[in-house]
């Protein structure tokens, strides 16, 4: 249902008046248009950086290396000047574009230097140097969510590239385990939110995403029979040893929120790190055979929990998403477990019944929530 139809329905039900309908429509049209413009600007800036990278990759021979280097450095200086001018004159969109391009063009300049001087440095070293030089100006000046998200992706790529290429499995384990909690901490510190706009919010979102992703992928480890604890050494992300430290870290997050060092959030969102940590480590805590069904069951239980978190914390779309994910997983579980047509058929019928039940239950829950909200208002 479109927004206008929905608003008209609410107006007919006497929930809002005609003036409110108009105000909401004007607001939504304005912000929607702005969002579209920002998205287009971000895509345009990204296209320019990718274009520059492609041009440098061609490694044109007919332009002398010195000319290429000087031209690129001048271009970067021009962008730095542009960002400075836009910042001083309050031109936010221009500033954000210049900053994004400057960050991207520093990476392409680094690639050009590597190409001209035939440097043999590994990728992670180049990425680390790049992050070190661009982060200060981005931290201080950049406010566009797109830029912040790109920085987070670059940061994680650098960390994972460095740790995995170096075969530093223990370091990789530390990074993959504690990174989500570190992002959550940085993103929810009250004092940091006060002095630093935009960035902490994105950090918190990235922290939650990483936690959910890790917990979702943990189901795969139920497929590995853990017959002997020495097998842990064979897996790079031998997670068992990190269980208690991570659980303590998740508990400390709750404690810090209790002490009002972190921003106030519904308790359900506070439980999310704790539940995720348990789910991530569970396959590594005791010896077990190959248990894909348990993995699937825990996966679905986790998504049911996420749906509950969504309802409790006001993100109802999370409940809808949980229903979809659980439904798909239900179908997949029968395909992956049962072999014969009879068993698959029975399995699919059972999953279909479960699916219908799940959707009906979710609808009932949502209806109840809407009624409750209506009564409260």
């Amino acid at each position: 249902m479109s927004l206008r139809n929905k608003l008209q329905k609410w107006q007919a039900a006497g929930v809002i008046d005609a003036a409110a309908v108009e105000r909401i429509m004007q607001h939504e049209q304005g912000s929607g248009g702005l969002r579209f413009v920002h998205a287009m600007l971000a895509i345009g800036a990204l296209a320019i950086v990718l274009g520059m990278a492609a041009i440098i990759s061609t490694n044109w021979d007919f332009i002398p290396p010195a000319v290429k280097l000087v031209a690129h450095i001048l271009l970067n200086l021009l962008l730095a000047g542009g960002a400075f001018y836009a910042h001083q004159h309050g031109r936010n969109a221009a500033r954000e574009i210049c900053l994004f391009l400057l960050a991207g063009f520093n990476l392409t300049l680094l690639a050009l230097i590597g190409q001209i001087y035939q440097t043999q440095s590994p990728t992670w070293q180049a990425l680390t140097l790049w992050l070190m030089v661009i982060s200060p100006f981005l931290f201080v000046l950049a406010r566009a969510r797109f830029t912040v998200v790109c920085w987070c992706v670059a940061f994680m790529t650098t960390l994972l590239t460095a740790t995995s290429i170096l075969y530093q499995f223990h370091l990789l384990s530390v990074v993959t385990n504690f990174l989500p909690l570190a992002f959550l901490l940085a993103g929810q510190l009250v004092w940091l939110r006060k002095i630093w706009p935009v960035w902490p919010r994105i950090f918190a979102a990235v922290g939650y995403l990483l936690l959910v992703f890790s917990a979702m992928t943990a189901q795969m480890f139920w497929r590995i029979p853990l017959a002997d604890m020495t097998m842990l050494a064979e897996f790079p992300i031998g997670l068992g040893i990190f269980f208690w430290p991570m659980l303590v870290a998740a508990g400390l997050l709750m404690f810090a929120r209790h002490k009002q060092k972190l921003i106030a959030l519904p308790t359900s969102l506070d439980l999310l790190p704790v539940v995720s940590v348990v789910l991530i480590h569970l396959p590594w805590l005791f010896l077990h055979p190959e248990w894909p069904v348990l993995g699937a069951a825990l996966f679905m239980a986790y998504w049911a929990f996420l749906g509950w978190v969504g309802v409790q914390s006001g993100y109802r779309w999370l409940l809808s998403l949980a229903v979809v994910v659980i439904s798909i997983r239900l179908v997949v579980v029968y395909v992956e477990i049962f072999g014969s047509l009879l068993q698959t058929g029975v399995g699919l019928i059972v999953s279909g019944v479960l699916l219908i039940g799940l959707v009906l239950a979710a609808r009932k829950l949502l209806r109840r929530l809407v009624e409750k909200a209506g009564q409260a208002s």
Partner: protein
Amino acid sequence: MNQRLLFLTGLLLLPTLVLGSLVLKKEYDLSTAKIWRVDIGGYDPRDLLYGHYLDFRINWSWRKDQSKTAACNGAECCLCLEEQGNNLPPVVQAGACDVIKPACPHFVIERDDQSFFDYDHSAVVARDFWQNRSYQYFIPEDSAPELDDYLRDNKHKHSLDIRVTRSGKMKFDELYIDGKPWREFLRAQPPKPAN
């Protein structure tokens, strides 16, 4: 200009200053480096050319008394280069850096990427370390297919100028095919018939 503006200007210029310094450092290193010509071979003969760069190994000319058991010492490994004269590639000796460095006027020192933090190379044979290392050489996109043909056919000798800096870093310079710079070599080839 007040302090805040100076701070912002510094932040925005920092990347260019750092990368510009990197360029100057590389120029200085190259200008003071000694040039050696070494023979090279494909890392994987079936696929020597990966897009825009060659993936190759250096065919070192080993000294006759090169130990087959001498090990690297820790994460770093060293290679001593000695001139042979008559345009011949240098003879080399590999070993632990604490042995090679004090006794050798021209040495190359490299660290295994995998050992950056704590991996111990004490068990790695120095000769194997240098023989197994692969490198990349960037080439222009428009020359890649033609160059690829000459690198694959095994009829030509490939060599490379390497510049060894005083601190023992190795930088790559001109690539040669049959003793000629690769651009000159390609220009001298008869045009291929159109398909």
